[in-house]
């Protein structure tokens, strides 16, 4: 086994920022807004770095798709302990419409090129909330998948994954190479220490274009309009339970 793990990291609007819709309803405002690494991607990086520290794998490669700023996100991964980065340059319209299908094609192509043993992704990004990239990547590669992972144990050629599912926890055993997606309780990401931030400066980030990988980034989707959720209206107070039932019948809720 190559001992190489690919970790996808996405640059998203910071979780604490109040989102504003653009006046033309074409999307949300991103200019001048604070961005950071998707929290689930941080958990994915942490898991990969922990595996390397336990000597279960040899190299952690952080991958991000986007314009020049995506390199900042890769640097954060490097400061957390990733060994090198790959920046897949996607800009302009292609970047606006970049979605799980395109990213999973990229991850699949890179996994083959880098001879990856594992791909670890966050279960979803906090901007799109799609929860599709991991699954699509596994399908494109015809690899097993361990999604919503809250516990991962790499054992030789197999991985034991405890998954968070609706009914509780499910434990599966899958062969490598495989795709894993990190859920909230998988680990607590470490703080990037200042020594590691300074060391990250020397680590390499390779730049590549989707075309170099022979990939087509055309989107099958078109965003028609983006709106804020409807404003909450004031409630109505009633005196008795009978009044309440009457009101509910009136508005057709009962």
């Amino acid at each position, binding site marked *: 086994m190559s001992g190489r793990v690919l970790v996808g990291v996405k640059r998203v609007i910071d*979780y*604490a920022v*109040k*989102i*504003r*819709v653009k*006046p033309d309803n074409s999307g949300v*405002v991103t*200019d*001048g*807004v*604070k*961005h*950071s690494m*998707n*929290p*689930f991607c941080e958990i994915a990086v942490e898991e990969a770095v922990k595996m390397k520290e336990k000597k279960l794998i040899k190299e952690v490669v952080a991958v991000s798709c986007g314009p020049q*700023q995506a390199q*900042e996100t890769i*640097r*954060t991964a490097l*400061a957390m302990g990733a060994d090198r980065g790959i920046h897949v340059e996607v800009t302009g319209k292609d970047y606006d419409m970049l979605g799980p299908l395109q990213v999973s094609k990229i991850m699949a192509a890179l996994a083959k090129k880098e001879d990856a043993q594992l791909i670890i992704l966050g279960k979803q990004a*906090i901007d799109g909330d799609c929860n599709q990239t991991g699954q699509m990547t596994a399908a494109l590669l015809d690899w097993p998948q361990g999604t919503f992972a809250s516990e991962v144990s790499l054992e030789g050629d197999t991985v034991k994954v405890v998954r968070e599912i609706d009914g509780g926890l499910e434990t599966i055993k899958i062969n490598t190479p495989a795709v894993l997606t990190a859920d*909230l309780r998988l680990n607590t990401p470490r*703080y*990037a*220490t*200042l*020594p*590691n*931030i*300074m060391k*990250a*400066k020397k680590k390499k980030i390779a730049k590549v274009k989707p075309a170099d990988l022979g990939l087509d980034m055309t989107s099958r989707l078109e965003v028609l309009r983006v709106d*804020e*959720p409807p*404003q*909450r209206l004031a409630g109505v107070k009633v005196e008795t339970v009978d009044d309440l039932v009457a009101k509910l019948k009136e508005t057709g809720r009962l």
Partner: protein
Amino acid sequence: MRALRLNQLVISRRFNQFTSRAGVRSLSDHVSSRPVPPSAPETAGDHLIYTQEHFALKESLRKIIDQEINPHVDQWEAEGTFPAHKIFKILGSAGFLGVNKPVEYGGLGLDFSYSVAVSEELGNIRCGGIPMAIGVQTDMATPALARFGSAELKEEFLLPSILGDKVACLGVSEVGAGSDVSSILTKAVRKGDEYVINGGKMWTTNGTQADWICLLANTSDAAPHRNKSLICLPMTLPGVHIARKIDKLGMWSSDTAEVFFDDVRVPCKNIIGQEGMGFTYQMLQFQEERLWAVANIVTMMDNIIQETIQYTRQRKIFKQPVLYHQSVNFRLAELQTEVELLRSLLYRATALYIKGNDVTKLASMAKLKGGRLAREVGDSCLQYWGGMGFTSDVLVSRFYRDSRLLSIGGGADEVMLGIICKYMDTLPKK
């Protein structure tokens, strides 16, 4: 429906802990026209003194502040102390306590601009006490030791302080001597291989929790600027009495002690550098101390102004937001203008300093302005918060109390003015 509840949650400070893990979104409460650009560029490209590494440092430190410090500030303010050993260990492990200290002792050997970046980010802590306590550890009790201490002394005191294993405090000011450092009375009399120390120190930040004190004492009868030495003193030595924790107007989460020394014996090798040079050593680091304090307060003022804007935008008076009254938005514009001016002075002084220049004049000007501007910002903003500003539930009242110290400690306004006059050559001739 969820959007409105989320908006209310955002104001609650516990929200930070929840969202940092769950990734829950909050929506702005109005569809805005234009986004508000940040006051400094988001990325390194155009910044005067910061590189990508400075920004990465700030981001990482911010996470520690958001997760380990801010959720507990209210409680620590109420208790009148904070767990210095625990917090310093977290910061030390992440490399934030030895930014410009020697690599051989666990430091990073970076230039002072990195210390300024750390200080700026610490201004995001929701009180003044904890940044001050950290500042004492990194830029007041340890610089002289790092520069002039013997290898043995650095091993015993500097290394653990940088790692966050030992808490340091500074013993310079006394009950009878603050601005007038040369008139301190604490004496260290040589007896064989030891110094016997008698006296007391006042305003000792971290004093009730510290493992060691960087003590300035008279070690000879020479002229007052040449008879003092810095000594590393373990606080557990017999004769060291922590007389009381001082009850203050602000900076509540920082424990401030009055300490007495009663025939305390310490080996002579605990002296930092040369005997008699203590006063000079302490003065050498004043530029850094002062710029550090300014970096801190600039971020805090930014935050107070922003919170005041948010509050007055939603608070209505006479049918429109308080913020829309010209007296309010014009005043906030004035204050923000002055904050930007101070920020520029900070960066200019820092840029010159890291190139090896003496920036005493600029650093003193910045400290003077910092203290005074913070009082103006606190006072004006508190007014706009109205009754709410007068309560303990809001940050502006805490800032009002905490920031008042800046014009007093670390070099009073009057001392700063004296220094500037000296450089302007306007003082009476002797």
